[in-house]
């Protein structure tokens, strides 16, 4: 028995469960009774050198969730370890390319329980989500986790998190077929239910608006990035397995979909999450909001120097660069005796995968001596040398 324990720990030490040895102080706190928590408890029993208990837990796990592949692998390892015949992760199947993927799944799933999301903190991205949204989804690609934020009493707080798979080649999609998951701020543009869906995509799929205007500006190509479920014979897929989609276990997407609001729920795809105090996010929010207000004031002054001072040298709109656009603007402004601009319904989110870039949307009410219009506008603001500048501008909701 002694020998088999050591062998088990050897398999644990191969990287899958290296935390097991390192984290004696880190009591694994598993509250809910999910397949994942059962898996974690199984591995916790391995750590405690209780193979019998580990097997018992693994029995109940695979009975309940027979299509949970990682759970099956761990079970195989436990059984062989009990026979004293396990020398490495996935034992006789260790050379199977899928073994590495499952080992990665083990690592990220366990990582979540060793390093729990910080309490009372939010991702730095959440400056001012849409007023009418009740939910914000933030995917941490490195942790293979989707964090669900809900608004309670006007405050955004973490409401739960779920294991997700992303693109085979990781985050930062840039070209068609690169099997990467985009980084950025997206929204769900439609819903495809099971009846219309290839079984491969599970119970439901939500196409995202990749590529959005920022992606296009950067020349990113590709399409068909969805949030979807898993095939019936697969509880969860390895952390990096999709063609770029965000894949949730069916039972997770089933419970989450009542929170999904098309065109409203922001889906932030990030490589990793920086967790900050809500106060810190709020101070960034206030600075950026002041900059937006100043921009409307300066535009309303019809003083083109003041107005154009808000635009970055890097500014572009469509095919126009700053120089061409500036010429147009000055010409238009010269024909007006007055301009009045008001904005409302402002949303502000930091863009994942970018340094100090925020996407800002608002309803713009533009009136002038010879023209007035109302539109929903989207701008990208970047912090340059301590001040926020507009780097991109266009109508909102025309990205898909």
């Amino acid at each position, binding site marked *: 028995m002694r020998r088999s324990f050591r062998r088990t720990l050897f398999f644990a030490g191969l990287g899958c469960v290296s935390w097991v040895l390192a984290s004696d102080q880190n009591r694994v706190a598993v509250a809910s009774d999910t397949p994942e928590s059962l898996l974690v408890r199984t591995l916790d029993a391995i750590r405690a050198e209780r193979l019998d208990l580990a097997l018992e837990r693994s*029995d109940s796990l695979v*009975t309940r969730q*027979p299509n949970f*592949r990682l759970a099956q*692998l761990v*079970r195989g390892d436990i059984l*062989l370890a009990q026979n004293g015949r396990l020398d490495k992760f*996935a034992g006789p199947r260790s050379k199977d390319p*899928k*073994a590495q993927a499952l080992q990665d799944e083990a690592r990220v799933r366990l990582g979540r329980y060793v390093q729990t999301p910080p309490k009372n903190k939010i991702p730095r991205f959440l400056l001012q989500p849409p007023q009418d949204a009740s939910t914000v989804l933030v995917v941490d690609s490195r942790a293979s986790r989707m964090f669900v934020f809900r608004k309670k009493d006007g405050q955004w707080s973490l409401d739960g998190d779920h294991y997700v798979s992303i693109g085979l080649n990781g985050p930062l999609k840039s070209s068609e077929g690169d099997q990467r998951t985009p980084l950025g701020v997206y929204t769900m543009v439609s819903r495809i239910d099971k009846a219309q869906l290839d079984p491969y995509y599970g119970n439901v799929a939500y196409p995202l608006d990749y590529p959005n205007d920022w992606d296009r500006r950067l020349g990113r190509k590709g399409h068909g990035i969805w949030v979807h479920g898993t095939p019936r014979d697969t509880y969860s897929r390895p952390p990096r397995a999709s063609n770029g989609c965000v894949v949730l276990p069916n039972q997770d997407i089933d419970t989450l979909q009542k929170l999904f609001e098309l065109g409203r729920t922001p889906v932030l795809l990030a490589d990793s999450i920086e967790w900050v105090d809500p106060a810190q996010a709020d101070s960034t929010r206030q600075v950026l909001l002041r900059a937006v207000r100043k921009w409307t004031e300066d535009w309303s002054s019809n003083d083109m120097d003041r107005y154009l001072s808000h635009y970055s040298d890097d500014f572009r709109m469509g095919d126009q660069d700053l120089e061409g656009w500036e010429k147009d603007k000055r010409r238009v402004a010269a024909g007006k005796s007055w301009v009045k601009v008001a904005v409302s319904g402002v949303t502000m989110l930091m863009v994942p995968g970018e340094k100090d870039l925020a996407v800002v949307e608002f309803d713009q009410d533009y009136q002038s001596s010879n023209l007035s219009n109302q539109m929903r506008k989207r701008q990208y603001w970047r912090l340059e040398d301590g001040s926020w500048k507009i780097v991109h501008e266009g109508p909102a909701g025309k990205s898909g």
Partner: protein
Amino acid sequence: MIVRQSMGFWLGCLLASAVSSMADCPVALFKKGVELAERGRTTEALQVFREVTAKDSTCLEGWNNRAALEAATGDMFGSQRSLSKALNVRRDVQSVASNLEKLRSRMARLAYDSAFGTPSKLPPLQLALHKEIAKPSKSNPSVDADSLVRALSNARQEIAELTKVRDSLLSSGRLAQLETGAESARSLSTAPPPPPPPAKSPASQATQTLPPPAPPPPTPPPPPPREPVKERSQEMSALETVRAWANAWSSQNVDAYLGFYGSTFEAPDRMSRQSWEARRRERILAPKAIHVEVVSPQVRSLGPDRAEVVYKQVYQTEDARLVLRKRIVLTKEGKEWKIVSEREAR
């Protein structure tokens, strides 16, 4: 009077031991299971070993064989449970340990197949069967139920003899002499001429463990010179029959249930056999589910081919629960025990 009291006490002890010792590995049933398994009748064999382990949860060989058959039918979890039950009885049995190792390897294989999505067609897992029940170890002498039942029936004969002796003593006015224990014992033990018991017979072992009765008991009665295995199988299958009958009832398998009744069974209330069967069918099929449990059965031989089983019957359906003491009399028809009388026991 004393004779009667002392015999009653002794009889009680015997009865109690006989009942408690019913929890031994039922040899006949076990052999039947092995035979079925060897003939490839896996499902039936499994059922038999389920019964064996239900009767005696300390029957290591029974658990092992049950596990082997569960593995053969693909019930890996069941097999795993049964093997660990076997190892709970004794840890150091090499064949059981090696079965467990084989089972784990197979389960690991299946788990990896699921993990990697590469299902493979595997032949049913074959675990080693135990053909025999090992002799009970000296440290844990098991009481042989059937020997006790035999002893009991001999004791009854003896009581009859003793009663005769007592009556003759009474009539001859020698009661006073009888009341001095030692003498009475001596004189009584000589009264019936039982053949001397074999030195190491299970019955004599068992009786040695009984508490000594206040008045000196007569010497333990010897088993009659019968072939023990045959006797045992007869006795065990009467109880087995009752359990199987209760199982058929519980599973609402009316045909099987009715099949347990002998040709001479008398239907209650002077009903014809046919209308009784029709009524039983209706009654058994009416509830959504029935659970019949045979609790603390006592088996008594009423002769070579006749036995009585008295037990507490717990009958439960979704809306009724009925607990009765029942007495079932069975007779041998060919090789099988059949129910000839079924009524509430007083």
